[in-house]
């Protein structure tokens, strides 16, 4: 009850004219910047941060929250319409969003994504409101051992994303991990696999790599389709085409609710974040038997699974930030910097010392979620027409966008070089039947895995028992083993069932 009254007074602050205006302004900027390819939420928030300096702290933070939040909505636009994801979670959205858009249903894909974002985010906010401080304490329990086994689960769930040849998928995953080993090692701060190239000391920048491997590689593929001209139905796309029918909505329900809840819990774990949430939720969805279409071919379930988990995690990430002052992700780290600019010390005492501020920020998340949804819905009928651009114009256009996006995300031509090489390699990957997404996702997850594995062994004195004696770690380990042997168990089960059937027959 106390929580509700706090939330209510928070809404009173958030719903003043000025603050709604700031939230709306932030949401517009957030969506636009999020839709700019290569600019994920991290880059977006960092670049827009200075704009908020003009306001008083509460208003500024409300605006910043809206920017952060609306970014997630906009991020889906470029991955769905032109297959240029701006960050890791968007890779998962592109897996189904882009195929669905190419089938001539860009409106449906965007609507699914935005409604799932809204609902997933809303669930995340409810979790944040009522269980925030408790879950933040829970997040603290994730030390090196727990993170190692959690990442083991996430990495093994990547294997479910592998399409076609298993050995090729395994090779792609390994290549991704090897790429992530380039640069200065976190554990020892020594350089490895840099081959004397100074630029490589900070590793391969992830965003240009994604833009190249998925976006630029896509351009090479379009090149082959040019002769066939646009195989899309270049019919007039109207508002009608954005509507989701009853069946579509019922397909979204399961992945969205699971995504929102799972995402918000994962969001509370420092260092896990939205990428993990969308991978795990997507792969669970992929294993579900209730999918109407196969995931990866343009299934509504896939888009909803990825986006709901992403936004749930984005809301959840505020938990550790507000309750403990710990940034759970790169983006919340920038937000933390923003909070400190006004002399606010986010930390364990924020809720007791300045409850007005903390609660008006939480309420403003609700407000900006609604504003972002409305804005996104208004924009979809216009922005979806991008899909009607003929291939011959789309090819140089996406190329230019990939250059600009990869430069903007790193402010360096080195980022552009990574994008170009990544694009060529991504094309080669596709032609040889190696899938890009397992490679990219393994690349980003394995860093956390290695760092924590080594820390855990360091703490335990080299003994592997640390992974079994800690309860949470043990649970994840059991899940991992279960995942590993589930195909075997299923096979055995089916066999025995078949035998029984045979006997009875």
């Amino acid at each position, binding site marked *: 009850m106390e929580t509700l009254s706090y939330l209510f007074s928070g809404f009173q602050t958030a719903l003043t004219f000025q603050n709604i205006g700031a939230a709306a302004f932030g949401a517009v900027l957030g969506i636009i910047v999020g839709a700019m390819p290569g600019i994920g939420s991290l880059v977006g928030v*960092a*670049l827009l*941060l200075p704009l908020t300096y003009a306001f008083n702290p509460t208003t500024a933070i409300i605006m910043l929250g809206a920017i952060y939040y609306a970014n997630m909505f906009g991020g889906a636009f470029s991955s769905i319409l032109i297959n240029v994801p701006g960050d890791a979670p968007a890779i998962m959205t592109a897996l189904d969003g882009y195929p669905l858009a190419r089938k001539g249903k860009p409106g449906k894909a965007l609507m699914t994504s935005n409604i799932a974002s809204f609902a997933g985010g809303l669930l995340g906010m409810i979790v944040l409101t009522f269980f925030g401080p408790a879950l933040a304490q829970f997040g*603290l*329990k*994730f*030390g*090196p*051992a727990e993170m190692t086994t959690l990442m083991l689960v996430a990495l093994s769930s990547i294997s479910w994303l592998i399409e076609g040849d298993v050995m090729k998928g395994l090779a792609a995953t390994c290549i991704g991990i090897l790429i992530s080993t380039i*640069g*200065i090692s*976190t*554990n*020892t*701060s*020594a*350089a490895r696999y840099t081959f*004397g190239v*100074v*630029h*490589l*000391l*900070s590793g391969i920048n992830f965003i240009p790599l994604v833009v190249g491997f998925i976006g630029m590689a896509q351009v090479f593929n379009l090149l082959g389709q040019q002769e066939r001209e646009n195989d899309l139905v270049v019919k007039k796309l109207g508002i009608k085409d954005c509507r989701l029918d009853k069946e579509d909505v019922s397909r979204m329900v399961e992945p969205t609710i699971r995504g929102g809840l799972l995402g918000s819990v994962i969001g509370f774990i*420092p*260092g896990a974040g939205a990428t993990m949430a969308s991978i795990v939720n997507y792969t669970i969805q992929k294993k579900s038997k209730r999918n109407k279409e196969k995931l990866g071919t343009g299934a509504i379930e896939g888009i909803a699974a990825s986006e709901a988990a992403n936004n749930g995690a984005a809301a959840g990430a505020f938990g550790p930030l507000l309750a*403990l*002052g*710990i*940034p759970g992700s790169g983006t919340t*780290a*920038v937000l*933390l*910097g*923003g909070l*400190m*600019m006004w*002399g606010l*010390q*986010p*930390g*364990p*005492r924020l809720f007791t010392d300045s409850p007005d501020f903390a609660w008006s920020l939480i309420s403003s998340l609700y407000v900006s979620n609604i504003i972002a949804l409305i804005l996104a819905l208004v924009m979809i009928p216009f922005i979806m027409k991008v899909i009607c651009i003929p291939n011959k114009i789309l090819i140089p256009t996406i190329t230019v966008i990939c250059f600009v996006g990869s430069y903007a995300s*790193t*402010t*360096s031509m*080195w980022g552009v070089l990574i994008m170009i090489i990544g694009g060529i390699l991504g094309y080669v990957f596709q032609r040889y039947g190696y899938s890009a997404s397992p490679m990219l996702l393994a690349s980003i997850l394995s860093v956390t895995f290695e760092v924590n594995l080594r*820390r855990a062994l*360091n*703490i335990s*004195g080299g003994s592997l028992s640390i992974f079994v004696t800690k309860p949470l770690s043990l649970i994840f380990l059991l899940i991992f083993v279960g995942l590993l042997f589930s195909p075997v168990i299923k096979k055995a089960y089916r066999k025995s069932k078949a035998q029984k059937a045979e006997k009875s027959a």
Partner: protein
Amino acid sequence: MKKKQVALVMAGIFAMGTMLTRAMAAEAAESTSSFVPDKTIQFNVSSKAGGNSDLITRTITDICTKEDLVPKNFVVNNNTDGGGNIVRIETHDTKDPDHTLLCFSSGDMQSMLDSDIGLTVEDFAPIATMAADKQLIFASPDGNYSSFEDIMAAIEAGTKINVGGTKSNEKVVFDMFAEEIGKTDMFNYMFYESSAESITALMGNHIDLAMGSPAAAISYVESGDIIPVVALSDERFVAPLDGAPTMVELGYNVVQSPMWRGILAPGSMSEEAQQYWSDVFAQVCETEAWQDYLNNYLLSPYYNDLETTRQIMFDTEADYLAGKE
């Protein structure tokens, strides 16, 4: 006649010569007394927008612009490539040394010296140190050790202690601490990316001790989530960090290594420009906005002139190189 003519010509030449020299001298005098930037100044930063180096740089440039300390505009150039080394190379190789500055902290020292780019502080012109940070050792209230005595007792009993902290300064000063108590092999120092990360690990009781600066730790100390154990400074910190004794109080030599944040210029920057920038930053440090910045981030004022700055930066470099061997 001839003699007269020669004398006249000579006199003429002499006169012209004097005038010329005088004019040249005057010009030279003018430029020594006042180098003034006549182009946009590029301020290079090796952290992302929003990072620590970026914040201090933007604060400085904002003050310069708002208070009209510098007639030209600044362009802040963020580039994290190569662990920040690319931007250092760019600064060093710039074609316009008088209009190029680099934000540099003692934390950047390691990244520069460990890489094989072959640059040292000697290749640059140190301009000023602006602010400094000292460190403390923290423990968790529900952990095994809550005081220096507990730590020593555990070490005597042969227990290895897990410590978390960042690379660079925190590591350097912790090594100095371990050496001072003579137990270098009883600590397990683990690198974390940021103080926030290591303090989080401490709060979850995943490690025994964490290094941290006042700014990174103060709110957790206030809330009682972590406790300061040893102050690595020559005097105690202000409340609520005043519970931690200094090494001198504990009966050892003083252990400290202030982490400074400062500014470097290309080695080829002219003497006049160096003096100019040194003066500008001295003025920056006297503004109210700068005081606000220091208070917000719990930093100590640490402005030093050209000569002292050189000394400090070279000393830090020598300390780091000595520790490496």
